[in-house]
Structure formats: structure tokens, C-alpha cells
């Protein structure tokens, strides 16, 4: 199982759940698809842009590590990992 946490506006897109656990192994890209299965079309429209890429205002972290510093959407996720989806416009 992996734990996924959603923050602020992204939480609203995930049926207002602050976190969820899913049975999963694979990479970040596959996890997002799994979450689309769970939360449906509305979640998909919010998470992906018109080109089918995750929107640039979402930061994705695996165990606190920004996936842009790992292998982006190919970053591997293993059982027990915690994934955070957080709006990028924050801080400063």
C-alpha cells in the first residue's frame, strides 16, 4: 500500500479527501492513472493539461523528495511510500 496526500485545491479535486491509501506499485505516472480511476473524470481534468501532461502548478513528492530531482514521472514508488500532491504556488 502507498499513502497519497492532497493539499488545498488538489484536495478539492480528490473528492475533498485529505489522504488516501492505494494498493500500488509502479512509477508516478502510473500512480496518477490509478488515482484517475479512483476519483474519475473530474480529477483527470484537473490534474492533466490539454496536452495530457500533469499541470505545471502541481508539485509531486515521493517521501518528501520532489520528483523533478529524481526521475520525474518515471520515479519509482514502492510499498509504504508517501506521495504528496501540493499546489506549486506557495512560499516566498
Amino acid at each position: 500500500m502507498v499513502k497519497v496526500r492532497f493539499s488545498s485545491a488538489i484536495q478539492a479535486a480528490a473528492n475533498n479527501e485529505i489522504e488516501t491509501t492505494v494498493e500500488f506499485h509502479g512509477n508516478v505516472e502510473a500512480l496518477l492513472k490509478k488515482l484517475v480511476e479512483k476519483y474519475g473524470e473530474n480529477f483527470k481534468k484537473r490534474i492533466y493539461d490539454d496536452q495530457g501532461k500533469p499541470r505545471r502548478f502541481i508539485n509531486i513528492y515521493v517521501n518528501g523528495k520532489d520528483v523533478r530531482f529524481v526521475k520525474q514521472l518515471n520515479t519509482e514508488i514502492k510499498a509504504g511510500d508517501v506521495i504528496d500532491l501540493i499546489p506549486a504556488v506557495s512560499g516566498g
Partner: protein
Amino acid sequence: MTKPSKLVCKECGEEYPVELRTACEICFGPLDVQYDYEAIGKQVTKEKIAGREKTLWRYIELLPIENRNNIVNLHPGFTPLKKADQLAKKLGLRELYVKDDTVNPTYSFKDRPSSVAVSKSVEFGLEAVGCASTGNLAGATAAHAAKAGLPCYIFIPADLEQSKVLSAQIYGPNIIAVEGTYDDANRIANLAANKYKWGLVNINIRPYYTEGSKTLAYEVCEQLGWQTPDRVIIPLGSGALLCAINKGFNELVKLGFVYENKVKICGSQPDGCAPIANAYDGKSDIIPIEKPTSIVKSLAIGDPASGPEALKIINESRGFADSPNDLEVVEGQKLLARTEGIFAEPAGGVVIAALKRKVEAGEIDKNERVVVYITGNGLKTPDVLFGKFPEPTRAKPNFEDVDRAITELKRKGSK
């Protein structure tokens, strides 16, 4: 009193009422507070403003607070705009000004956004306030929380300068030192803001928070007799300050207080953490920095939230983004202190170093009217200067020995 009219997503244009909202629900883009400028223009005149209190609250109609009773006022802003003739002469410039925000209530420009954001948190009825901080915002938020009588939760990177931690601790906040970078502290603050009913000023109050900083544009124009400068140089961390200052100039045009915004908007960040300047130099997208390495901790934001917007403003206004190294930063601090008597923190050194570099490179016309924003006080970060000066000349407690020391100093060529 006029009220802010709406929140508008800067990315997709979706509109929202003025409410507690962090980001756009459609695309998660940043939200901008907008006002009814026509109504404000009918109510407010330059003459009215001139007679008001000498704080940023003199521009109340352009700030997002709906009830004056909610204002938490430490009297921030309306800091001096100092004509910097000595520094101008040294660099060969005709007209140079320093906007000196080292003299705010907690000694940095962060009193501006935090005063607005803490006031807005009071207006929202939130039970506590706080922030993620590289230091200056910690003190500013903690001081405003103290004045508001609210609990305060502050998230900082654990390696922050002790002097900066101390300058927040005096106000009694709860400080959580995250063992990681500023971006780690920011991520965790985001999760905390989502769990508790807190107003974390630069997280879930961010649309309102950035409004405080735009007063740095209003004040400069007012202090120049309601004229814009030709060029401004601004320290760059997240890029939010630069975007806010540009918004301030644009709003004054909308109100007819200044004729047009042709200001060349320039930014500077240390080369050990320069994602925006790197993108400017390489004409590329912004690539975040995982582990910043610079003495300029107040600008050590590897993943700049307002970076893309700041970069666009810099390019469209024909400004520049520069990235001096740590040595140049300290030289910049010294140059400002030794010509204008202003002790800036390293972020000020970053700005002065960029000014010097660009004048020397011929990229700043010597006849331009330039304003540099000095946003934090050097006394908050003495660590970077230890060991940078020769020891004081020692003398025995009699005049003969002191006179010998004076002769020695003169021989060495001291002024």
C-alpha cells in the same frame, strides 16, 4: 471604504469571490486580488493620500482588507527613499535612489506582506497564523501575531542563521526547524496549513500576502512626486516581490496617478541559488535548484513559486536578471555601507552587486533614474561578515600610544 472585488486566476482567468482560497481550483494557478479601480479613482486622490498616516495603510483602498478594525498595525512601510549621490558618483550614475526598507518594524520589507496577511487572517477569523520562512518573514509574522494576540507557527530550514531565528523568537512564536532546505519547510507548511485552521501567510493566505509588497511601488512613485523611475533592481527569491512591485506600478497607471509603466524591472539573486537568473541567461524554462549554496539565505529558494511570472515581467519590461557571487555580494554590502551609510543584509548586497556589474557592462544608461530596493537590515545577519575586516588597531590607554596608532593608520592610507 472600497472593497477588493474578486480573485482572478493568473493562469486560466477563472474568477472567485474574495475568500480563503490558496490556488485556482481549475488549474491550481496563482490567484490575483483585483479591485474596482474606477470606484477607487473616484474616492482617492494624491492629495488625500498625502495627508494620511506615514505607513503602507495610507493606500488602504488598494489593500484587500474590508474592515479597518481588522488591521494589525505595527506601522510598516512609508520607508525613506534616499537619494544615493555618493554611490551614484562612485558608479558614474546621474540619479540613483535607495528604497530603504531596512527600517521597517522588524527590519525587513516582510512587514509589508505579513501585515496585510495577518490582518486578513483576523478578518477570516482564523485561530492562528504562521509562515514558511528563510528568516525575515519569521520575525515579521511573529511580531504581527504578537500584536494580534494570535498563536504563531513558523517553519524554517534548520540551518538558518541563529541571529535570524533569535529575531523571531523574541516575539514568542512556535518555531519548527525542519531538517532540510527552505523548499522542504515550505512543503511541510503547506500540509500543515491544510490540516489546521491556520493562516500561513505565504501559503494559504498568499494571494493577499503579496498585496502588501506592491506598496513598495506606490511609495517610490509617491516619493518621486508621482513619477515612475526608469529602472528598478529587486532581490529575487521566489519572485513574488518583483511581481508585486510591477503590479503596483500598473495599478497606479490604472488610477491615473502616473502616466505609464515603462519601468525596466530587474532582479538579482545569488549565483548559488539562481534558478530565475539562469533561465533568463539561458532563455529557457526555470529549472529548480535542489540544494542552494549561498551565504544569501534569505534568497535561497530553489523552487521559486512566482519564478515564471517574474521572468516574463523581466523580459517584457526589457529588464535583466543577474546573479553575482558571494564575494561580490559582500563587496556590495560594503559599498552601500561605505557610500550611503546603509547596512543591508546580503540580499541588499546582491542588488548592489548587480547594479555595479550592469553599470560596468554598459547595460545601464548613466542618465537613467534608477531605484534599488534594499529589503533587509544587515544587523540580522552578521555571521556572513565575521572575519571579513581587519582587527581594530589596538592601543594602550594613553594618548601617546593612541597617537602612534593614528599615525600608523594614516601611513596605511586610511581615510
